[in-house]
Structures are given as structure tokens and as C-alpha cells.
């Protein structure tokens, strides 16, 4: 039982890393949003499994929050934003897909090496969750760095936050108050980013953030 429980949580957390890499691979905006919804779905499954094996009912609340907000509300809202803004659906990436994937693999390897060294005397479950969570966070950052479209940067930010939730649940649960406040701050951040998207769009007629460079006078 113990080993099966570990295997299932390993599978779910590993699947989360894999979906983060799939996010790097996408070159269409809508498919990126769908992959993001899948990411949140796997996250909520993973959190629910942790709640089950740690016998911590408040984590179920976290799972439900992740499911409702991140897997349903935010992707649907982003779909509508993309449709309203009329952005063209190809993602312009600053770096090509191949080098990005290689960099992503390097980041995963780095976070595994680092985390397994640092947490050598912790509980194996928490260790593995921390290692995967760090790689999900780094991959989210990589999505934000390599994409020039503001919407996909938002998606990168959200997936980074998914990694934080994974880390928090692995570490023997965190208080529910903290959990809810984090979830709501993310929601607020999402709303603010949405408003900013519309502003950027109004001013520059595009959501390509390289237009901001021109505005500041930093021509490439």
C-alpha cells in the first residue's frame, strides 16, 4: 500500500512536469490554453491524492479551488480574452522550440539534482514533490521568458503558481487560511493582468510585449 501510494503520487507529479514541458512545445494559443487547463486538472488530482494519503481534509478544499478556478474559470476567461482581443493565434516565441525544450530538460535535471541533494533526510514523498515542484516553477518561468505574447506569459505565470501549490501540499499540508489567501491573490493578479492586457492592446494594437521596448526607446 505504501509503495502504491508513493507510485501514484509520483505518477501524478511526474505527469505535471510532463505537461509543463508540453506547454513549452505548443505553438498555438488555444492549444496552449487547453494544455494549461489539463495542467490544473492534474494538479487538483495530485492535491486530492495527497489529501487522501495524508488524511488531511482541508487539502480537498485546495483541490477544489484548483479545479474550479484554474481548470475552468481562468482558461475559459482567457479563451474569451483571446477571442475579444482578436489576437492572431500563432505564438511568437523569442527562442525556437528545440532550444527551449533542451533548456527545459536542463532545468528539470538541475532542479532534481539540487532538491535531492538538499533534502536528503526528508520524507521521500515530500522530497519528490519538492523536486518536481521546483522544476514546474522553473518551467513556468521559462515559458514566461521565451514567449513574447502577453497572454502566453500569463499562462506561464499561472503554471508557475501551480508548482507552488504542489510544493505546499507535499510539505505535510499548509494551513487553510494561507491556502485560500494564496488562491485569491492569484485570482486578483489574474484580474489585474487581464486589465493590463486590454490597456496594452488599446495603446499598441498588439499584445506583443516587444512593442513596449519601442515605447521606452530601447530599440533592438
Amino acid at each position: 500500500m505504501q509503495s502504491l501510494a508513493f507510485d501514484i503520487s509520483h505518477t501524478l507529479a511526474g505527469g505535471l512536469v510532463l505537461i509543463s514541458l508540453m506547454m513549452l512545445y505548443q505553438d498555438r494559443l488555444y492549444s496552449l490554453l487547453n494544455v494549461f487547463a489539463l495542467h490544473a486538472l492534474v494538479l487538483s488530482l495530485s492535491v486530492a491524492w495527497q489529501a487522501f494519503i495524508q488524511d488531511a481534509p482541508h487539502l480537498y478544499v485546495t483541490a477544489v479551488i484548483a479545479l474550479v478556478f484554474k481548470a475552468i474559470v481562468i482558461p475559459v476567461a482567457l479563451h474569451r480574452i483571446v477571442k475579444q482581443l482578436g489576437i492572431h493565434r500563432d505564438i511568437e516565441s523569442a527562442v525556437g522550440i528545440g532550444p527551449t525544450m533542451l533548456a527545459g530538460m536542463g532545468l528539470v535535471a538541475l532542479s532534481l539534482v539540487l532538491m535531492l541533494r538538499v533534502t536528503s533526510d526528508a520524507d521521500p514523498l515530500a522530497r519528490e514533490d519538492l523536486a518536481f515542484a521546483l522544476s514546474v516553477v522553473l518551467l513556468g518561468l521559462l515559458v514566461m521568458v521565451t514567449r513574447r505574447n502577453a497572454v502566453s506569459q500569463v499562462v506561464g505565470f499561472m503554471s508557475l503558481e501551480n508548482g507552488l501549490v504542489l510544493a505546499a501540499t507535499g510539505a505535510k499540508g499548509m494551513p487553510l487560511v494561507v491556502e485560500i489567501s494564496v488562491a485569491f491573490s492569484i485570482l486578483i493578479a489574474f484580474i489585474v493582468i487581464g486589465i493590463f492586457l486590454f490597456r496594452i492592446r488599446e495603446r499598441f494594437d498588439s499584445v506583443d510585449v516587444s512593442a513596449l521596448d519601442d515605447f521606452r526607446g530601447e530599440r533592438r
Partner: protein
Amino acid sequence: MVVISDIIVQGVQMLLVLLLAPLLTGYVRKIKARLVRRQGASVFQPYRDLLRLLRKEVVLADNASWLFRVTPYITFAAIWVAAALVPTFATGLLFNWTADLIAIVALLGSARFFLALAGMDVGTSFGGIGSSREVMIAALAEPAMLLIVFCLALVAGSTQLSTVSHFLASSYVGLRVSLGMALVALFMVAIAENARIPVDNPATHLELTMVHEAMILEYSGRHLAMIELGAFLKLLLYVSLIACVFFPWQIALYGGGALSYTIGAGAYIVKLALAGFLLALFETATAKMRVFRVPQFLGAAFMLGLLGTLLLFVSRSF
């Protein structure tokens, strides 16, 4: 006595793969035709094609060297040996003890090397383009394949196929996300290596798309028959590789009696039929991709293999 029965079982396995290979290809073609609501040729059509080709005269280009003439036999022999090494219905056969996964990859690689050389031998432009594309695909598919091999070897503690299959059939394995990734990656590599649809379409003669066909365009008669049979065998090889590593159910163990061998053979044929059906379904559902997209496709396979290996280190680290 034991040695003789071992030799017989091994011989049965070698003949089995040789006889089943054209049938599998014919079956996949038939299912594909039925899926697009056409009648399709009989499943035995590949046998008839091979017989017809064997009866025909060989037409050689004037400037073809000896290499051009021996290549069909070399490639066929290498692929047949590789296919005989993969456990199909039973593990622990006579040759299985030499059946190292890395050796199988090397045998397939050398077959491909000779084919690429022969493609350039006559000096036509199609042969050259086919060889260069084939080598590009091989250079990307082989690292991915080796990473899959490493992933399996880390799980099972050996690169020997019999041992791997034995281990994965036991209940020690549990649930491993790495194995799932390796399975998907192996499927992608198998599609690229066998020139199946998203990567290459062997049914066309359109110069923009052909890879494998362009390379063997100059062959005729019994030489072409050998190469075609080699291609059929290679498809069977990959299907049996996937079946024996990831779905080793009902495979007969070493020293099992005739009954367990029969059950194993039956299960093997069922697995082949299922795999052929799934392959045909996949091929009718996807479109051929551009040649320049192939590196991305195989890069994804490479990434899956690497990620599977990395994840294994996490689950092994305590």
C-alpha cells in the same frame, strides 16, 4: 536433448517472424483501406508481391558497384537476426541470451547504413535525397531509442530483452510514470523508423515526400523483394519489441512445455492484430507532416525518454 529442443523452438521463432511479417503489413493495409471505406487488397497481397518480385529479372544500372548488389542481402540478414533476437512468444530462447537491446539497435543501424550507402551508389539524384533524409531521421531517432533503452535498463537492471520482459511481467514493477513515457517515445521512434505516415508515406512516389522509397528506387527484382521483406520484418520487430517489453502478458517462460508455448504464440498473434489495428487507426487519423517538422517530432520522443530516465532517479533516490 535440451539443446535440440532449444534449437527447434528458436528455429520456430525465426520462421514465425519471417512468415508473419508480410501478413502484418498486409493486415495493416487492409484495415487502413477499410477505415477509409475502400475494399483494399487481400491481406495476402504482400506475399504475392514478394513472389512476383522474386520471379522477375534484376535490372542493374551500368555504374552500380558490388555494394549495390550485396546491400539487399546484408540489410535483410541484419534485420532478420535482430527480429529473431526479440522474444515474441517465449522468453529465454537459445539466442535470447545474446539479445541485448543495444545490439538490436546496432544491427538495425548497420542495416540502415548500408541502405543509405546503396542509395547513393548509382548516383541518381533521388537516391541521394532519400539517403540524406533517411540519415537525418536516423540521427535523431537513434539517441531517442538509446534513451528509451537506458530507461528500461534502469527499471529492470539489465539491457537484455529476456530479463527485461521477465521483470516487467512480474509484479515487482508497480506503477511507473517513466515506463509510460518510454512507451510513448518508443511508439514515436517506431513510426519514424518504419517510415509510417506522419513521418514518411511509403505508398507514394512523390519526390517532395518520399524518404525510404526514394532510396530504394533503383532496385528491382529479387533485390527489391529482399528489401521489402526487410521492411516488413522491421515493422514486426518494433511491434514485438513493444509487445514483449510493455505488454508481456502470457509470454511463455524458459523451459515451459508445448502448451505454454502455444498459449504464448496465440497471445502474440492477438497482440499483433491489436497493434496492427491501432497503427492503422492512428495512420488514418493523422496527416503527413513536413520533413522539417520531423526533428521536432523526434525531439519530443527524445525528451520523453530523457524525462523518463530523470524521473526514475527521483523514485530510486531513497
